[in-house]
C-alpha cells in the first residue's frame, strides 16, 4: 500500500526478524515517524500562523531568517534552547519540571490512533475515539500542575480557569462524539471514516454536510477551540489579566515544551475535525478518479483548512469574558448537544439504521 502502513511488521519479518522483534521495530519506527514529522510540522505551522496573522493585520510577518523567513521557528527554537532554565526558589521543583513534559507527551500520545490513510494507523484499536477523549482530558494536568507548582498567584488563577474550562467543554464534546458514533456504529477511527463514504446523497464523503450533523460539526469546531484554550477562549493565558497565565514562571526549554504541546494539540483538534466530520483521508466526493490522489494529501488539505480557520479566528475574534465562556459551555452547548443526541438517535431508530 502506501509508504506508511502497518505492513511494516511483515516487511521486517521478511528481513529475517522474529514476529515479536518485527512488531517492536515496526511500532518504534511508526512512533518515531509520527512524532518527528509532527514536531517538524509544528515548527512550520507556527511560521504559517505568524504569516497568516501578519496578513490579517496588514504586516509582513517573519521575513528575515531564511527565504521568506521559513526558518524563523528554528531560529526561535535555537534561541530558547540556549537560554538559562530558571526555577523559582519558592516553586515545587519536581512538579515544576514535570508539568511541561506532561503537556508535551500528552499532546503526542493522541496521534497514535489517527489514521493517515486507509490502514495507515499506528494503533488500530476498537476504542480509538474514547482513547482520544481520554488523552485530551489529560492535557489539563500539565497546566494545573504548572500553575500550582509555580507557587505564584497568576499561574494559579490560570490553572483554576484551565481546569474549569476543560471539564466544561469536555462534557459537550462527549455528547457531540456520541452523535457521530451513533451514526458510524463504531468507536474505531478507521470505521468512522469508512462510514462517511458516500454518506450524503450517496456521493459526498462527509458527515458534516448531513443536515442533522452540520450544527454539531460547527459546535465541535468551537468546542475544539475552547478545549485547546485557543483564542477566543484563551482565558488561561489572558495577558491583560494574568501576565502570561500558567507559563509566567517558565523559561527556556520548559517554556518551549508548552509552546510545542499547544500547537501539537491544535493540529490534533484540526485533524479530529477533519476525521470525524469531513471524511478524513477520503476525497470530498465519492468519484473514482479522485481516489488516485493519495489519501494523506486529502487529509492534510482538510487539516490546513481547519488550521486556517483557527488562525483566522485567533486573528479576528476578541477574547470572551470568563462568565460568557462558562455560559456558552453549560447553558448553550450542553443542552443543545444533549438534545441532539436524542434527535439523532430518534432519527436513526425511526429510519431503521440499527436494524
Amino acid at each position, binding site marked *: 500500500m502506501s509508504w506508511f502502513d502497518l505492513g511494516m511488521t511483515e516487511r521486517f519479518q521478511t528481513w529475517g526478524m522474529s514476529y515479536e522483534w518485527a512488531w517492536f521495530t515496526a511500532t518504534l519506527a511508526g512512533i518515531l515517524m509520527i512524532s518527528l514529522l509532527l514536531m517538524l510540522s509544528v515548527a512550520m505551522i507556527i511560521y504559517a500562523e505568524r504569516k497568516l496573522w501578519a496578513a490579517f493585520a496588514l504586516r509582513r510577518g517573519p521575513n528575515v531568517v531564511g527565504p521568506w523567513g521559513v526558518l524563523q521557528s528554528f531560529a526561535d527554537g535555537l534561541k530558547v534552547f540556549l537560554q538559562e532554565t530558571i526555577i523559582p526558589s519558592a516553586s515545587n521543583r519536581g512538579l515544576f519540571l514535570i508539568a511541561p513534559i506532561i503537556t508535551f507527551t500528552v499532546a503526542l500520545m493522541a496521534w497514535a490512533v489517527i489514521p493517515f490513510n486507509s490502514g495507515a494507523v499506528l494503533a488500530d484499536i476498537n476504542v480509538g475515539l474514547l482513547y482520544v477523549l481520554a488523552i485530551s*482530558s*489529560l492535557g489539563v494536568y500539565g497546566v*494545573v500542575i504548572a500553575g500550582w507548582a509555580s507557587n505564584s498567584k497568576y499561574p494559579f488563577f490560570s490553572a483554576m480557569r484551565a481546569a474549569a474550562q476543560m471539564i466544561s467543554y469536555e462534557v459537550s464534546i462527549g455528547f457531540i462524539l456520541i452523535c457521530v458514533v451513533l451514526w458510524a456504529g463504531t468507536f474505531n477511527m478507521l470505521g468512522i471514516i469508512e462510514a462517511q463514504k458516500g454518506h450524503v446523497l450517496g456521493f459526498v464523503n462527509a458527515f458534516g454536510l448531513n443536515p442533522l450533523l452540520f450544527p454539531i460539526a460547527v459546535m465541535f469546531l468551537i468546542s475544539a477551540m475552547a478545549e485547546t484554550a485557543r483564542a477566543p477562549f484563551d482565558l488561561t493565558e489572558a495577558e491583560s489579566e494574568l501576565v502570561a497565565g500558567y507559563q509566567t514562571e517558565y523559561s527556556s526549554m520548559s517554556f518551549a515544551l508548552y509552546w510545542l504541546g499547544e500547537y501539537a494539540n491544535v493540529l490534533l483538534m484540526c485533524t479530529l475535525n477533519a476525521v470525524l466530520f469531513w471524511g478524513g483521508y477520503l476525497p470530498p466526493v465519492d468519484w473514482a478518479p479522485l481516489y488516485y490522489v493519495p489519501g494523506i494529501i486529502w487529509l492534510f488539505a482538510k487539516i490546513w483548512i481547519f488550521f486556517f480557520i483557527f488562525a483566522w479566528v485567533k486573528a479576528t475574534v476578541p477574547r470572551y469574558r470568563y*462568565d460568557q465562556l462558562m455560559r456558552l459551555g453549560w447553558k448553550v452547548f450542553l443542552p443543545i448537544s444533549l438534545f441532539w443526541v436524542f434527535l439523532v438517535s430518534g432519527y436513526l431508530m425511526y429510519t431503521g439504521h440499527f436494524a
Partner: protein
Amino acid sequence: MIQVISFYIFAAILLASAAMVIFARNPVHSVLWLIVAFFNAAGLMVLVGAEFIAMLLVIVYVGAVAVLFLFVVMMLDIDFAELRAGFMRNLPLGLLLAIVLVVELILGIGAFRAGAVELGGAIAAATPADKPNIEAMGSLLYTKYVFLFETAGLILLVAMVGAIVLTHRQRKGIFVQDISSQNQRRPQDSVRNVNQPVGQGVEL
C-alpha cells in the same frame, strides 16, 4: 512473555503509587500519585482485554474526578503541624479500623479459597471473540440489566439535583448579563435625536 512483564510493571507501579498516596506529606502530591495509580489500573484492564473499562477509568477518574480533587486540594491551605497534632487522639480508632479490614481480608480470601459463590442465575457467557468489548457490554446492559442500569442512572440524577438544590442560592444585588435582551436592543430604543433650542435644558 511480554504480557507477564507488563503485568508486573503495571501491578508494581500501581501498588507503589497507592502506597505513596498515603505516605506523601503534601495532599497535592497524594492526588497526583492517585492519578498514577488510576493509570496503571487502566493498564491492567487493557491487559485482561477490557479496553472499554480501561478507557472509562481514564476518562471518568483521571479526566474528571481527579481534576476536581486536585482543584479542591490545591485551594486548601493546610497546616501540617495541626494535622499531625490529632494523630494520637485518632490512633485507637485507626487501629480498630485497620484490624477490622485485615480480618475481613483474611475472611474474604479464605472464603474464596473454599469456592466461588453462586449468585442468581447463570452468568452470561464471556465476551465472544468477534464482538468488540463495547458491543458485548451494551447488549448486556441494555437488555438483561436494563432496570439495574436505569436505577443507577436515576440515583445519580437524584444526587446531582440534590447537590444543586443544597448549594444553589439566589443572590440579590448583582448584575447578570442578559444576552438575548442585549441582542434585542435596537438603536431607536436608546438613541434620540433632539433639535435643542439654545438656552434651554435637555429633557432626559
